[in-house]
């Protein structure tokens, strides 16, 4: 779940005063603190009895065993000086880095939704319920989604046929997937929709005939109609029903099953993209070049022996998988979600510790939420955490498409890696470089490997180098000692509804 202890303690690096981060401030039942290698959750007195009952339940143990729920144990005041006697605190392992739903692929959304429904179903069977059901309560530990909000559980009224988190599940899981499938609204737009989409928003945007699709007629069309009627009547009074407990359980199970079916339909097959077929279609790479590149990467992994690797522009994950097979925990960034989907599926199938994020390092995910302090920016989550950063066949994207000067790219690399950088230099003669040069020869056509070396020299020294048959150059760089000793940018802790 978590890697080895990190060099910097989160608490000590938290901004203070006006810049203090807003952690789990919405939940009346508790709050969260992060330490270097665990998450501590304070339970407020009003939620203490319910939490203790949950901890003692066989359901909690079963969910933890299955890997669907973050492990919890009662934190001892003897271990943590910040815990006052008599207070109830829980200790969870840290999942690092945090990934937010707006950085997931469609398949990751589906996996997160399915784990939520699985947990909800088991909770219902055991006499409990989830009081909230949002993607923000799920973190990916490697490729695996895990429910991290243990305060989401509450004992349910046995006669109630209402799942109060149903509306939130539909708004935050189902409707974003529906919008992505039928309206091409990108999933990363959920960055601006903390509570998802209202049925009425989707209803208005859907073509008329689509509103009557069997999977949408209840959660979009009828819900919108009832919404109007409800708004003109008594407002949104929350009510539950009294029914035979056996019948109530049956109704809730059917509701969960239908949601599962709707999620499966909404998160249908992903299409292909230029980059998801890149490795099969790359004409500028002969088999001998591919073999030489893989050999160099293996050698670099052998020299650097990284525990944490960041793969920037990971594509379908060939080199992320190599790094993971060498024993490293990997974070793979890729802006093409179809390519990253293939990576995530491979990692999930082979159970490799690879966290896949849809992200563009040139336009990294910004901080978001209340006062921009609920959700961390991508760089806040990544800076200074990696022993090795891979930038394979990426630098020409940054130069030509993002128009970034080499010195700025070098500066970012120096912030991201603690020690090693594996870089692929793509010269102007390369077909891919030429494809994006587009008449800007005066600006970029003169760039050479020497220019690259000069830009990176203030931060790195070259340890190993090889030139491939296609003219590309692979470089293993190491941070210079004075740079390596520099404290990385301040790190900031995560938030979601209640995450560790």
């Amino acid at each position, binding site marked *: 779940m978590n890697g080895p202890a990190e060099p910097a303690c989160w608490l000590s690096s938290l901004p203070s005063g006006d810049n203090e981060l807003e952690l789990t401030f919405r*939940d*009346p039942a508790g709050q969260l603190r992060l330490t270097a290698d665990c998450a501590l959750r304070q339970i407020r007195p009003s939620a203490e009895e319910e939490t203790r009952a949950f901890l003692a339940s066989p359901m909690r143990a079963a969910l933890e065993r299955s890997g669907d729920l973050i492990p919890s144990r009662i934190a001892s005041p003897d271990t943590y000086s910040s815990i006052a006697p008599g207070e109830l605190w829980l200790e969870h392992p840290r999942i690092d880095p945090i990934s937010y739903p707006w950085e997931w692929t469609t398949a990751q959304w589906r996996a997160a939704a399915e784990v939520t429904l699985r947990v909800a179903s088991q909770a219902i069977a055991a006499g409990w319920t989830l*009081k*909230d*059901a*949002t993607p923000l309560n799920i973190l990916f530990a490697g490729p695996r989604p895990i429910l991290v909000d243990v305060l989401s559980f509450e004992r349910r*009224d046995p006669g*109630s*046929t*209402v*799942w*109060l*988190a*149903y*509306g*939130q599940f*539909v*708004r935050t899981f189902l409707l974003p997937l529906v919008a992505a499938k039928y309206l091409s609204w990108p999933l990363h737009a959920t960055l601006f929709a903390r*509570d998802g989409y*209202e*049925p*009425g928003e989707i209803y208005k945007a859907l073509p008329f005939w689509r509103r009557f699709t069997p999977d949408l007629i*209840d*959660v979009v069309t*009828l*819900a*919108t*109609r*009832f*919404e*109007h*009627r*409800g*708004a003109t009547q008594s*407002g*949104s*009074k*929350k*009510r*539950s*029903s*009294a*029914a*035979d407990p056996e*019948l109530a359980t*049956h*109704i809730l199970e*059917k*509701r969960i*099953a*239908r949601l599962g*079916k709707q999620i499966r339909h909404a998160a249908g097959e992903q299409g292909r993209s230029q980059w998801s077929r890149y490795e099969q279609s790359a004409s500028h790479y002969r088999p001998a070049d591919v073999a030489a590149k893989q050999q160099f990467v293996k050698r670099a992994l052998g020299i650097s022996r990284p525990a944490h690797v960041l793969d920037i522009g990971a594509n379908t994950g060939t080199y992320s998988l190599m790094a993971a097979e060498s024993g490293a925990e990997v974070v793979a960034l890729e802006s093409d979600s179809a390519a990253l989907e293939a990576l995530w599926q491979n990692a999930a199938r082979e159970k490799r510790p690879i966290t896949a994020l849809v992200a563009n390092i040139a336009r990294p995910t910004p901080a978001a939420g209340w006062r921009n302090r609920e959700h961390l920016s991508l760089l806040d989550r990544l800076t200074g955490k990696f022993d090795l950063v891979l930038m394979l066949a990426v630098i020409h994207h940054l130069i030509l498409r993002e128009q970034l000067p080499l010195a700025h790219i070098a500066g970012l690399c120096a912030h991201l890696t603690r020690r090693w950088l594996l870089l692929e230099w793509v010269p102007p003669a390369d077909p891919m470089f030429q494809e994006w040069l587009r008449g800007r020869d005066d600006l970029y056509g003169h760039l050479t490997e020497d220019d690259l070396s000069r830009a990176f020299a203030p931060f790195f020294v070259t340890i190993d180098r090889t030139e491939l048959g296609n003219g590309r150059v692979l470089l293993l760089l190491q941070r210079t000692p004075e740079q390596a000793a520099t404290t990385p940018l301040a790190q900031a802790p995560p938030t979601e509804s209640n995450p560790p």
Partner: protein
Amino acid sequence: MGSGRGAHRTLRSPAGHMRLLRVFPLVLILVGAVLLFERPAYGYADPGTGLLAIQAAGSALVATGWYLRRKIYALFHRQAAAKREAGELPDSADGEDTSNP
């Protein structure tokens, strides 16, 4: 839910079918009544107005299926029911849940 044998006996004649048709609206009314006896419930997440109503409507549908499941099952398994009446099949085959998904 009543005895499976009783249900099968009811279904053997056209009069039995008529009786079932009379029972159906009664069950709907009962289910509706059950769902109308509501009391306030308070949640952490906003349940929404329309989506809460969808739950109530879905509950009514599933509850109807729940109450009628033996009868619905019997409608499609009359032959098996007849054999069971004759003692050729055990009672345990009865009562499968065919309520609404």
